[in-house]
């Protein structure tokens, strides 16, 4: 039933339809509304049987989920930013133990400086943890991805993180068509754990593994993610059949058929990018968009296929590996090895800096002119940077100037201040 609903609420309602048995929560913005809503449903008895556990930290939240999942319960939690980092050890552990936990990540910047607004730094920080990471473009997709996430997680015994942009999606009220219980029940069978703590069939879960088997354990985990590359589109296809809705999958292409330039991005910013692309298309530029839904596993083949016709790829991402550059861009570059594609990295929206259609239109224009450098910070305030660089010069006797640093990174003056 289509309704105007807050993104967090839509996710909460959908998670409840998935019949989670243990939900644990520690509040952190911008995840709070999701977990509050689930809590209310449990307390009201609308979601039952379900244990809702108010824990003392995110570390405990993931740990409770681990215990619950290992005991055969469908476990769910949600977090963001610092919370994800605080539970980081348990995040890796859940994946290592192969426990099909589903977690919503309301993407948010990481401090210091403390910042509650959206970017993808948190998700990038755990990209190597072994979790499947799916990025939602809209609240409809965010809601739908949770149903698919449980299905995928439990099929493969791998935890799945559904990433949705903090505030931009979580707190946005828009039209979402919520599924009904019967549809979800048809799509998502009861959890059949691959391993479980059972007094009748005792096993030891969580052994210490040394050099003699550790690489194999890791490689097997990798194989499971490669499996996921097949299962993710298949499940999305099934979902389409069942609901008539296109949600999930590995990648989504938009107007790429004849594109010379393709913009690659993840999450809600795809909507703005599509609008900007539409404007540039009207101006006659051959430009398209590739949205990546599955960041882990990274669908290199699908990406390469989708980008194969283009000569220039602009990877626009809300994260930045300090001292290196884009994170998604690196993965895209790997996927395009051996092609003649030029890759341009654009870092945008850090700490919630708005990514405006206007900026994007200007950016794409410049791209069409072949004027983009290797790495660009969208809408960087160079006056501020200049002042700080000067101040640093005055206080430091030696060492590379900030300007030199930027040059080393392939950023030349003037490119940063594109607006």
């Amino acid at each position, binding site marked *: 039933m289509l309704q105007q609903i807050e993104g967090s609420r839509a996710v909460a309602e959908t998670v409840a339809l998935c019949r989670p048995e243990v939900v644990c929560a520690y509040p952190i913005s911008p995840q709070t509304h999701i977990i509050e809503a689930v809590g209310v449903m449990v307390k009201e008895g609308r979601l039952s049987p379900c244990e809702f556990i108010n824990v003392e930290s995110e570390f405990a939240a993931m740990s409770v989920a681990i215990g619950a999942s290992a005991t055969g319960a469908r476990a769910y939690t949600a977090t963001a930013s610092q919370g994800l980092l605080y539970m980081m050890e348990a995040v890796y552990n859940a994946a290592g*133990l*192969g426990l099909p936990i589903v977690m919503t990540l309301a993407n948010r910047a990481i401090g210091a400086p403390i910042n509650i607004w959206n970017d993808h730094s948190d998700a990038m920080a755990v990209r190597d943890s072994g979790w499947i990471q799916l990025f939602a473009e809209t609240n409809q997709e965010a809601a739908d991805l949770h149903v698919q996430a449980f299905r995928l997680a439990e099929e493969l015994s791998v935890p799945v993180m559904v990433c949705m942009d903090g505030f931009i999606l979580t707190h946005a009220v828009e039209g979402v068509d919520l599924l009904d219980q019967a549809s979800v029940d048809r799509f998502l069978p009861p959890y*059949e754990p*691959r*391993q479980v703590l059972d007094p009748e069939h005792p*096993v030891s879960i969580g052994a210490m*593994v040394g050099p003699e*088997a550790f690489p*194999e*354990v890791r490689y097997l985990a990798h194989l499971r993610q490669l499996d996921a590359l097949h299962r993710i589109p298949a499940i999305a296809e099934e979902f389409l059949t069942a609901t008539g809705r296109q949600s999930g999958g590995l990648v989504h292409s938009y107007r790429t058929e004849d594109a010379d330039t393709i913009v690659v991005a993840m999450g809600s910013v795809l909507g703005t990018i599509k609008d900007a692309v539409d404007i540039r298309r009207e101006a006659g530029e051959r430009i398209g968009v590739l949205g990546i839904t599955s960041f882990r596993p990274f669908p290199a083949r699908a990406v390469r296929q989708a980008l194969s016709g283009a000569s220039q790829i602009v990877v626009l991402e809300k994260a930045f590996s300090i001292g290196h550059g884009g994170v998604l861009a690196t993965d895209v570059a790997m996927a395009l090895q051996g092609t003649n594609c030029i890759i341009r990295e654009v870092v945008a929206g850090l700490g919630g800096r708005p990514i405006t259609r206007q900026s994007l239109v200007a950016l794409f224009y410049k791209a069409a002119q072949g004027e983009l450098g290797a790495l660009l910070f969208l809408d960087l305030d160079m006056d501020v940077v200049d002042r700080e660089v000067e101040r640093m010069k005055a206080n430091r006797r030696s060492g590379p100037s900030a300007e030199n640093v930027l040059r080393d990174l392939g950023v030349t003056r003037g490119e940063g201040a594109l607006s």
Partner: protein
Amino acid sequence: MNQRPFAITLDVGSSRSNHTGSWRVERPNYVNRLPPCNNACPAGENIQGWLYEAESGDYEAAWRTLVEENPFPAIMGRICFHPCESACNRVQVDEAVGINAVERFLGDYALEHGLRLPDAGPATGKRVLVVGAGPAGLSAAYHLRRQGHHVRLVDSSAQLGGMMRYGIPAYRLPRAVLDAEIQRVIDMGVEVMLNHNVDDIEIERESGRFDAIFLAVGAQLGKRVNIPAGDSARILDAVSFLHEVADENPPLLGRRVVIYGGGDTAMDAARTARRLGATEAVVVYRRNQEKMPAHVEEYEQALGEGVTMRWLSTINKVDADKIVIEKMRLNAEGFPEATGEYEELGTDAVVLALGQDTDLSLLARASDIEVNDGSVQVAENLMTNGRGIFAGGDAVPAERTATVAVGHGKKAARGIDAYVRGATPEPVAKHALAEFATLNTWYYSDAERTQRPELEKVRRQDNFEEVVLGLTERNALFEARRCMSCGNCFECDNCFGVCPDNAVLKFSDGTYEFNLDYCKGCGICAHECPCGAIEMVPERI
């Protein structure tokens, strides 16, 4: 359920393929050590063994274990001076286990329930002459019958028992008990000849009727000393005195009696004199209490019954109604020296309790049997120089107690058995002593010894009723359970429980085994074994 994850999830039992026994540099070993009580028992009783049975309340089994070595528990439980208790390791925890009291309880239990000694062994056709029906002779007869030999037991007295009857007063050993336990031995098929003197051992030897002879003639002659005495002075020796009392023909002593000597016989004589009506019974002894050979229980009983002591005194002269005493002092070596100070003491009779000698006139013609200092010389197996002639009890050099004599009887029987079968006696292998340091006494409950009840003093004045009474069943059980089972496993499960590697196997019959596949040799089992029944021995690496 799907396949479990590789390496991360493991199946039960998989660690058992890791044999940690290879870490071991020492291995535990179950041992039996000799409990100090057993070691000290002159009769060689397996005290720890029968206490173990008694602990579970199986008194018959306990008694059967006991009579394997000694057929007289009810007697021993009354008259033995229990060196076992002096040796008992429990002394170092609180007080010795009341072994003697439990032994008596078991003896009385057997009499009350009419338990019979084991049957005699299948007849061997060998004949043994036992001369003297005291504790040594009776004990030898018992063991010889069990071995299947024919026994002729002869004694010059009218009744069996030797010094147990004629030396020990009835208030210490009631005659009913004595008679019953002796009769049980005789019932095994012992040929008895009483009032029969063997005057010359050569006659018996030459007769060829016996394959072996055991001399258990005792020490029946009271020692005399030369004391100037007036014509009407009344001087008796304690052995004769007690013998006459035992024959219910007590001599007249008068009201004031002096007993000369400081041994148990002196105490017996003094206490007997009190019971016969003496208002004063004074023990005169040339040394002090510390040097007195009498056992402290006997001494204390005597004091309790009104016997008085004159320490450091010798009798110089005896007259009709008084004696003269010279005071002594101990020199640096602890020997008494005369002081030249004299004192008179009014007295009606003097009983000499200065020790006993053995009447060995029957050996006059047996020149091959060596006699030294009034004692028959014997080898380890108690055989004299005369082949086939054994000797034991008070007649050989040893401590003169009934228990020693019982032990001699057993040892002689073993020697005779080997001799008549033409075998060399098997040396009895002895385990190492279970010393206190090998125990871990933490595990034993704090439990103070149960005291035996005693007959009220006022009721002892004029009769020979038994003074020290027996334990109730409950008390005997309690006392038995105080035993620490030194050196011998009593199935406490400690080793089974305390092993961090589950490397001790426990079987349903109460035995254990080390599983050396997994034992790392930490030694906790040995350290925590309450009774020291586990030792650690180096691995040969």
